């Protein structure tokens, strides 16, 4: 195996997916959802998103039970034969692509919100430096670093929401489902795509040292993500109201609204802390799975040798990906969901069906 370290299922399957999904989703998803679903966006995130997340988790776990010591790159080659390599390569490219989108989102956010005069490339290079260092250090280090920042991260999200309470106007949520269920379903496209990012777990599952808990933890993770994202959406809706859909980073605006005792105000620093910490972990994780996947695809003896090349691709790609941040949000709202769906649920389900039909892989443990 390329990765020699082992992590506990709490570190790798419960906490890590939480950070890498929530870190970007919490800032961007509320606005995209609100565009389609209006004030009912939270229902999209809570119900439809979670169901989709659970479905993805189910497929990943079922596949993993058939191939307990293999990643999706490896078992797709067993299941799909000659097409397996192509599927694996597609996943590696997908990981790199999603990562470059994340890096770009990150750069755009810092640029527009904090330092408009610094060139974008500075943020991208710094972030990629951190990410590649973590990816080179291995899965254990990423998981431990995530475990350390998790409380800070979760507390910032919860803290901002609670501090924003005094500005809240809960009647903004009413009436619920004014236009029926259609807008809600349409609004759930984007959150679904984010929730499905837990497909990354299929690259991590073989390296868990207590596999009997992994399935349970993945489900907990999906539910926890749902709860936190719903909270963020509800609070942006009740504080900012109808305006949410016109903002790029509504959660950030929420933090700006906070005033406590005329002294503690403008807590956007907290968002920045949360954002940098979370996105570093997210980028490191995607970076890691892309390198690991590439290593497995080409049968390398050590994935670390491809970290630097992937970093270069990432840097260039994220710089050239979108012309400006408006286009990137549009891409995230319109193209990303469908694109993500193929990789998150489409291909894995197909793999599972083929594997079940051709009886490949072990029947696995129960549960």
């Amino acid at each position: 195996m390329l990765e020699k370290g082992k992590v506990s299922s709490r570190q790798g399957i419960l906490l890590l997916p939480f950070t890498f999904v929530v870190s970007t989703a919490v800032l961007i998803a509320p606005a995209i959802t609100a565009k389609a679903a209006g004030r009912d966006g939270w229902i999209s995130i809570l119900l439809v998103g979670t169901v989709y997340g659970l479905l993805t988790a189910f497929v990943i776990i079922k596949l993993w039970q058939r191939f307990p010591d293999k990643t999706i790159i490896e078992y797709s080659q067993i299941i799909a034969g000659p097409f397996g390599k192509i599927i694996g390569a597609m996943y590696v490219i997908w990981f790199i692509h999603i990562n470059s989108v994340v890096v770009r989102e990150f750069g755009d956010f810092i640029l527009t919100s904090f330092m408009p005069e610094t060139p974008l490339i500075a943020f991208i290079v710094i972030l990629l430096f951190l990410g590649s260092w973590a990816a080179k250090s291995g899965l254990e280090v990423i998981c431990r670093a995530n475990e350390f920042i998790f409380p800070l991260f979760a507390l910032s999200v919860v803290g901002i929401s609670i501090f924003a309470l005094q500005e809240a106007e809960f009647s903004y949520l009413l009436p619920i489902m004014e236009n029926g269920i259609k807008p809600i379903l349409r609004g759930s496209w984007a959150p679904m795509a984010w929730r499905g990012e837990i497909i990354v777990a299929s690259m991590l599952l073989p390296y868990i040292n207590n596999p009997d808990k992994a399935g349970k933890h993945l489900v907990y993770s999906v539910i926890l993500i749902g709860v936190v994202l719903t909270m963020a959406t509800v609070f942006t809706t009740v504080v900012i109201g109808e305006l949410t859909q016109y903002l790029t980073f509504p959660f950030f605006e929420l933090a700006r609204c906070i005033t406590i005792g005329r002294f503690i105000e403008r807590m956007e620093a907290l968002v920045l802390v949360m954002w940098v910490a979370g996105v570093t972990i997210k980028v490191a994780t995607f970076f890691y799975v892309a390198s690991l996947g590439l290593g497995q695809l080409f049968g390398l003896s050590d994935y670390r040798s491809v970290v630097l090349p992937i970093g270069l691709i990432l840097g260039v790609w994220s710089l050239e990906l979108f012309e400006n941040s408006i286009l990137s949000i549009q891409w995230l709202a319109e193209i990303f969901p469908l694109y993500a769906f193929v990789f998150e649920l489409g291909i894995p389900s197909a793999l599972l069906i083929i594997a079940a039909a051709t009886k490949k892989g072990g029947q696995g443990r129960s549960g």
Partner: protein
Amino acid sequence: MLGIFNKIKNALKKTIEDQDNTVSDAGEKVLISDSLDKNIDYIKRVFDRCSDVVVREFKIPAKEAIDASLIYIDGMVDDDLVAESILRSLQLNPAIINDDKVNKSNAFTMVKERLLSIGEIKTVRDMDSLVEHVLSGQAALLIDGSAQAIISSVRKLESRTVDEPQTEPIVRGPRDGFVENLRTNVTLVRRRIKSPRLKVEIIKIGRITQTDVAVLYIDGLADGEIVKEVKERLGRIEIDGVLASGYLEEFIEDYPNSIFPQVNVSERPDRLCSCLLEGRVGIIVDNTPICLLVPATFPQFLQSPEDYYNRFPYASFTRILRFGAMHIALLLPSVYIAVLTFHQEMLPTPLLISIAGQREGVPFPAFLEALMMELVFEILREAGVRLPRPIGQAVSIVGALVIGQAAVSAGLVSSAMVMVVSLTAIASFTIPTISGSYAIRILRFPIMILAASFGLFGIMVGLMAILIHVCSMRSFGVPYIAPFAPFSFSDFKDNIIRMPWWAMINRPSFIGVKDKQRQKLNQMPGPSQDKSNPGGGESGAGKGKG
């Protein structure tokens, strides 16, 4: 380990051979011959120009007087003991004077078994170990006609008396600290842990200095793998001299280039003992009052032994305080720079106006101002440490009053900056271990540079880089920032806060202790439940769980 002994011996032999090639064949032990003259001849050649070596030749007054000779180093042995228990009992002992049964052939056994009144004796057959023992402060007795020497332990090394530790003062708790003498130090530990399970293994390190290094651990508590690893790493060291424990520290670290300390040091025997009881391994080096403790984890550097002697609410309070102070020491100047340079909007308006007013006439950007003041402070601090104590006071007065006050009134720095720097300095003094505070003090500067270039984002990037670095570190196999990551709830009882003793049922789990439980369950105290007084309440029930 035997290998290193042999290497040391060979090295010793080589130095002897350099002086006189006829002494021995290379690679073979020089045995003690049965002719006293030959032996003395050899010894005098080995100790040529060593004026502190005493070779006392005398006669054992049996019927037929037997020549004998005592070799020791002046000043390393107890003179009274040598005179009383060796010379007197051999020369003036009525039991053998003019005894005709004593002759050359049985004198050795006779002396060894009946005449010497010394506690610890040993016999050796080769010259090298004789020389080694003499050098470590024992007396060697050679008797004509026998090819052996008796080594008697009459060591008495001059040493400082056990004194209060200078670098780790505490208010409540024991006040004895380690001294330079290894034996005294081991005794201080043994006095606290009266158990045969406390093992003290001696390794000699240093080709020329031949320094004794003691590895201490509690058998059954310390992880065998860690003990083995410690001994292996110590055994690998080949250096000409070990003058202090710091020499060894740099040889046994896992990440020699890291800025973070990976070996905990202490001059308090109580700290060493508490670490031993947690399953760690202690290393005491002869001639150093500072012992080394491995494996080290980062939270340890923020803990003082006093935390365990004070009641738990007070201890927890000071620990939280220290934890906060560490962050102030690391981040305050950087946050000040970042806020003034990039994020003025984060300050409440009145505060911003007041700071801006103070900075009115200051000619430097905030970063330069902060960097200058921090450097001045570090210089003052170093000067204060190096100077003799009475002058050190003068330096601090000059620093605090003249530089601080004068710089502000001259308009070179703002008074807010002086406050920031002094708060940072005071905060860095709360870190109870020297090596921990060095790491924080040095890391402050790169983070200041990041803050000046990228504001809060830069600070956060710096912190993430530090986090990734410490997460990838292990000290002797133990994750460096345990129990933060990997997170362990039960180990958090003794981390940022300290739970009461009766609640800390288990030893730290990350060190690999097999015998996890350190105390009986359910020992939470409460008013005694007197049967005649049924209103006693429920306080007797403990909450600990297996």
